[in-house]
């Protein structure tokens, strides 16, 4: 992104030429990264950027092509959530994050693929089929923001927006060798992000470097009067400089190196931690004993909220409506049976169950209580360190044909990303090495609430000392 902006200023290319070239590249690309390509409007935006650039507009984002995950509303451009139920839906409104990017002159190049309603970790459950990993087309790009990650990694856009509920920005960033940030809950407006789990969802920037991610984050963050859960945040400066790591205490929880962690990932993450030590950081062990409850707590809360959030897709006002129904209950059941995939239905049923009379206390309420304990656990840990480091995912990208049948095994892939989601903390995945098959590995950094400045600064310092993020697939 910064690179694109520089090339515009150096006169090496123009927004129109850049967008035309990208649109051509996307046309022949086979990663299935995009659901909708915004060709016509993107060229209009590029032409406007050409003029603004000539008039001396200095905005880094001017004319820069950004891809948007297809669960983020874009005015006049289909927003399908990769679901049959919204296959014909075009919003009349922009998500606040999209409006912010448009106002800065960014070009919305297209809408990227995802697991249906962002429920998944592989971008395989999409209504348009799976996206592919640019490092190996037979592998998953991760998910649910797999389309955005694949588009950034294969240089089909300069940066992208994803959404992260339990790891959906960080894990695909890890699998595709790019940088992805899940901001502090509340630091970015959710208005126009199609809700999966309201108390966890955050829009997150994805880019080739921590600096790019920082620029995007700066463009989308801040209080939005349309989202009561959004706040201004206290650290308002754009972070473009590396953090001086001297005296920075990096906490390493033992629980982040548990059973199931691949050897290659463990090795790369340990090397990354050594790099930080060499940069001057103090590496300290921290206890996060509640981490083991993360996956269970997450799937109760996320599914509970999802079961309610997805109730609006009833075939009455917009989206798919089953043509076979003859009465009301049949209209609901047929529309939803035809419109949602198996994973979405599974989560709706799980969520409905945990909120039902007689089960609410045992599941939803209990999970909420444990969630509070996890928040306290992190607060306690952050009295002893400034950052927490560990792997983003226990494994690297796996084959699209090796897809696990057992949903529980897939859920366990989120084991390291879920805790920061439940605690609302900012967390970032940055490239930190490759496995023996040459697939990227991600390092996850977690910071205290609203300390994206520390997170991004540390990421920039790490990337200034390493080249993992510069390797192209």
């Amino acid at each position, binding site marked *: 992104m910064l690179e694109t902006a520089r090339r515009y200023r150096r006169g090496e290319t123009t927004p129109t030429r850049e967008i035309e070239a990208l649109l051509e590249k996307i046309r022949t690309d086979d990663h299935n990264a995009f659901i909708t390509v915004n060709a016509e409007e993107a060229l209009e935006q590029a032409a406007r950027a050409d003029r603004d650039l000539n008039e001396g507009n200095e905005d880094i984002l001017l004319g820069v092509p950004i891809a948007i995950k297809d669960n983020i509303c874009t005015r006049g451009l289909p927003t399908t*959530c990769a679901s049959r139920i919204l296959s014909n839906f075009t919003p009349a409104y922009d998500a606040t994050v999209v409006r912010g990017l448009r106002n800065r002159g960014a070009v919305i190049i297209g809408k990227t693929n995802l697991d249906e309603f962002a429920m998944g970790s592989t971008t395989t459950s999409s209504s348009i089929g799976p996206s592919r990993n640019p490092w190996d087309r037979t592998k998953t790009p991760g998910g649910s923001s797999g389309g955005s990650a694949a588009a950034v990694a294969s240089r089909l856009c300069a940066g992208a927006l994803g959404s992260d509920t339990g790891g959906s920005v960080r894990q695909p960033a890890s699998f595709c060798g790019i940088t992805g940030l899940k901001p502090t809950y509340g630091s970015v407006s959710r208005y126009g992000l199609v809700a999966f789990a309201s108390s966890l969802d955050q829009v997150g920037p994805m880019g080739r470097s921590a600096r790019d991610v920082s620029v995007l984050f700066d463009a989308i963050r801040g209080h939005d009067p349309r989202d009561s859960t959004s706040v201004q945040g206290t650290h308002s400066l754009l972070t473009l400089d590396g953090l001086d790591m001297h005296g920075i205490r990096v906490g390493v929880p033992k629980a982040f190196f548990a059973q199931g962690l691949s050897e290659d990932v463990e090795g790369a993450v340990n090397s990354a931690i050594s790099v930080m030590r060499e940069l001057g950081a103090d590496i300290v062990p921290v206890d996060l004993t509640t981490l083991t409850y993360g996956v269970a707590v997450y799937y109760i809360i996320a599914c509970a909220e999802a079961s309610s959030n997805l109730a*609006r897709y*009833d075939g009455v006002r917009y989206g798919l409506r089953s043509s076979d129904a003859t009465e009301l209950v049949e209209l609901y059941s047929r529309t939803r049976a035809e419109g949602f995939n198996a994973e979405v239905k599974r989560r709706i049923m799980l969520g409905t169950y945990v909120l039902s009379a007689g089960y609410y206390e045992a599941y939803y309420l209990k999970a909420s209580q444990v969630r509070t304990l996890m928040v306290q656990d992190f607060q306690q840990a952050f009295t002893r360190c400034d950052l927490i480091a560990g792997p983003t995912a226990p494994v690297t990208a796996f084959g699209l044909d090796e897809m696990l049948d057992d949903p529980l095994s897939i859920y366990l892939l989120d084991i390291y990303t879920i805790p920061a989601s439940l605690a609302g903390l900012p967390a970032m995945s940055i490239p930190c090495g490759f496995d023996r098959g040459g697939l990227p590995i991600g390092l996850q950094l977690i910071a205290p609430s609203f300390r994206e400045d520390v997170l991004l600064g540390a990421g920039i310092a790490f990337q200034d000392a390493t080249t993992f993020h510069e390797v192209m697939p």
Partner: protein
Amino acid sequence: MRDFEVVIGLEVHAQLRTQSKIFCSCSTVFGLEPNTNTCEVCLGMPGVLPVLNRAVVDCGIKLGLATGCSVEPVTVFARKNYFYPDLPKGYQITQYDHPLCSNGHLDIEVGGEKKRIGIVRIHMEEDAGKTIHDEDKPLSFIDFNRAGVPLLEIVSRPDLRSSSEAVEYLKVLRLLLMYLEICDGNMEEGSFRCDANVSVKPVGQQVLGIRTELKNMNSFRNVHKALDYEVRRQIELLAKGDTVVQETRLWNAALNESQPMRSKEESHDYRYFPEPDLVPVVVDEAWIDEIRATLPELPSDKRARFATTYGLPSYDTEVLTQSRALADFFEQCVEILDSPKDISNWIMTEVLHVLKVRGKGIGQLGLGPPEIAGLLALIREGTLSGTLAKEVFSEMVASGRDAHSIVSEKGLEQLSDKERIREAIEVVLNEHPKEVARYRGGKTQLLGFFVGQVMKATRGKANPNLTNTLIREMLDS
């Protein structure tokens, strides 16, 4: 047959008169073209979020303070999940665990007996849209203009013991809401709706009977009839040795009976959970004080003051305080003309009659307190007779002109000139020698006859008291 005791609790939904809806900026105006008062938020489009309208909380606090409730320092919204076509999101945003207000009361009076009815809670929620069925087609239409209009739900304790108490409670609550200017109280348009929980039990039994829920009663009359019907139905069942089935019943005003709702429509597990899209609302003392300062004089206080300050009987205070506007109108009249009882009488009879005929409120009378006080002043100073005053008042209402100009234009000033009245009496007595003779023979009841004749001759303008006195003088001399 044993005696039964009736136990009724009421749930009232009051639509609030805020400018905009509870979670978006759409207007709350009633009666617009269907689906014109909507936006992506109240239509429940994908990705949208609710933002609480602070004025709704203001209204809730106001009612809470007026009913002696305690106001929750941190109040929380919750989702009530169920599917219905006019419920855009598939859930209603309402309150569950931490309602805005709780533990208050309303005082009612039935048959001269005062009674305090407990209020369990008052909470805020959004209204749903409206489904309109075309039974002929069959086709259903949905109007989402109402979706997101703010409501207060007011839940009473099961303290009501008869349909009359229930109706009185509703009347007192409705009047209070209107005094607080937070609800227009219009039952036909649905801005004041009520559901009732009804059970009966043998007198003396501690345990409550099995209750039914009654819905669809859209007037006080229907509430009365529906409750009476339900009480009778339950007592008959118990008297036969049958049991009452716990169910929801709909009142059918056309058939004068209630029918059970289809069980499918009521077998809901609402799966309440805290609304994650809204943050808890912190209501601090400063906010409560700010609202307390805006509280108007409440109906019961006003009634008491009218009795002591103006010496009015309780019937008058009841009528005059039926709306804040009417009470204010009365007091403004008194300020101009210090005759509270005369003014009260005139308002209760003439003014309210006109308003009732025209179906209007005091604000649409077209005449202000100065005009009414001016008219009554003419009566009091003797310029206008009471009889003619009614004629003048009609003319005022029709034209909007003041009494004085009508009276002088039409020459309706009361005739109080003794000489001219005597002349008129003279003529009458000469025309009726027989009656004069009979009167003088002791038939003094004929006095009224002479007065009537004089009135006729003066086209009602002769001062009746003076005429009386003068006739007597002249006949007795």
